[in-house]
């Protein structure tokens, strides 16, 4: 076997979910037999329980375009955010490596623009909530 190219491109969880779904995987493990293998079915099951199952190609593209203006996050962090769709600030902190240190550095750089760094994070969080809304039952649970 020859590895021609180890990494042709990263895939978001949504893309893998969509690919397995198009091959015939379903949430019902018995229904998967014949079209996909049991191991693919397990991956599909895991992804069905993650935010990826609620996403669409358009929403992921929209997020990536709109998140471009936040210069302090890298492509991998954007991938992290798309895969985990944080809805609260601590979860967003978790997806961005060394968040506090980067904020302090960013503060010096954008001081002239007079914008607080936390505002940027809050804006990012609002963008995530807008493009990847939680399903109705989860919202109800949270408000209770």
């Amino acid at each position, binding site marked *: *076997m020859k590895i*021609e190219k180890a990494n042709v491109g990263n895939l978001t969880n949504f893309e893998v979910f969509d690919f397995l779904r198009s091959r015939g995987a379903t949430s019902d493990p018995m229904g998967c037999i014949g079209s996909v293998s049991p*191991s693919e079915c397990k991956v599909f099951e895991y992804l069905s329980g993650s935010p990826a199952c609620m996403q669409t190609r358009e929403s992921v593209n929209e997020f990536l375009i709109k998140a471009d203006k936040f210069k302090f996050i890298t492509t991998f962090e954007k991938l992290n955010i798309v895969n985990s769709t944080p809805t609260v600030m601590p*979860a967003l902190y978790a997806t961005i490596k060394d968040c506090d240190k980067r904020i302090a550095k960013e503060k010096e750089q954008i001081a002239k623009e007079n914008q607080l760094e936390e505002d940027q994070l809050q804006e990012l969080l609002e963008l995530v909530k807008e493009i990847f809304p939680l399903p109705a039952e989860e919202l109800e649970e949270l408000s209770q």
Partner: protein
Amino acid sequence: MFYLSQIERNLKMPPHLLKPSLLDGELEKGIRGELEKLYLDKVITNLGLCISVYDIQSFEGGFIFPGDDGCATYKVRCRLVMFQPFVGEVIVGKIESCDEFGLQASLGFFSDIRIPERFMVQPCHRGEDGIWVWQFKVDNEEFQYSLDIDEEIRFRVASVKYPPTPVEQSENSKPFSPMEITGYINGDGLGLVSWW
């Protein structure tokens, strides 16, 4: 978590798979089946766990070499969907078990995820029932949060290792895992999903 990997392989197609394939023009299906047998659910060192065959880009050849039991050898180029989280990625899994060294988490299709004690939320200790408990102090009030089995846990990947295959294994040692992920949960937003 996932990415595409392009590989090239000289694939031997056994004759019983060739006959129906050539007749129906479904040679590609037969090749796909063989590739899946070879790679699906297997770990390729430094690439990760193969989840699926994404597509077959090209195949050529089909020569039958002497001494090959009538197998036709095709040079196949295909792309595989590999699972290998990058360092720093945040993943949600389930706590599968715990021991004196720490926790073990699972994603359903992959279970060799370890969260050693030094990477867990501090301070924590192990209770009498074996479950790890996080002691959280705020304003002189102490809260105890236990990390129960089957709870959903959000962790960040610290490293992905591929230990070499052992030549000999004693009977009592735990089964060999070709790919091991180490995670940590001592940070904002990490730990049990229900905490945040």
